[in-house]
């Protein structure tokens, strides 16, 4: 097994097919990144907002629940 291209610029060019190949890999990895990162970020945001609500609810020292204002996350 050996590297199939003589140098890096040839690797990016891929005998003319480079743009097609690289665009595909770029789009795919953006999609993969979105699939992994988006839910992690939403989770963090949700936990943060719950924490704030909980702290407000506790500091008010009353039973009145904090208003639930966090927007329902849409897929």
């Amino acid at each position: 097994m050996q590297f199939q291209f003589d140098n890096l610029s040839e690797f990016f060019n891929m005998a003319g097919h480079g743009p097609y190949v690289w665009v595909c890999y770029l789009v795919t990895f953006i999609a993969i990144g979105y699939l992994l990162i988006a839910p992690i970020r939403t989770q963090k945001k949700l936990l943060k907002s719950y924490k704030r609500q909980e702290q407000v609810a506790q500091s008010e020292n009353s039973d009145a629940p904090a208003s639930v204002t966090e927007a329902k996350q849409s897929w």
Partner: protein
Amino acid sequence: MAWTWFHQLGSPRWFYEKSTAWLPWLISIALILLAVGSIWGLGFAPADAKQGNSYRIIYIHVPAAFLALAGYYIMAISGAIGMIWRMKVSFVVLRAAAPIGAILTFVSLFTGAVWGKPTWGTWWVWDARITSMLILFFLYLGVMALQNAFESEDAANKASAILALVGTVNIPIIYKSVDWWYTLHQPATIKFTEASTIDPSMKYPLLIMVIGFYVLYATALILKTRTEILQKERKAKWVKDLALAS
């Protein structure tokens, strides 16, 4: 006793806490497999005799198409489990699986179109597999649209589960019909390269990428399910404790 795990799996809390331990492993395995497979496929696998380097798109196109199809079945099966055993988590999985499947279907359509340009000289061909994939994409969009249309979450879950099951019954029929339709209309101007026997040096990276996509799918599904659980269970004490501890 043997079925305890099954009932535990139905509890959102159990699922959330267990998956916290699995996730780092899953993410790293997925990323390593995808990285190894991509580099191998892009740089080290030999170029195809007929298609040259453009065939390297196969290493993402085929796994994405696999998962797009498998994802629909995963979605429908979890919907069925939810309808039959009233398991909370399975409906959450159903909700999470639809957008992931739609994205993977889109990826496979997009890479197929871009691959078509250097190979067939055109972006879009009404090829049997492409057409079936497009219809699969519409089926995913339908499930997602139906989920969002209901105000009651319970009704949304059940309705989309029924639609997913109806779709599952239909998918083989659609595939066979489109296949038949294509053999009838096959245009003579476009020559397709037959699925010739693929050389092992090209096959190993493909195998790695397919496994990588499966692990990735599982990871994405678990991540999305956890997010949905956090929203669904926001009134539960364990979620509040979790938030305070974070």
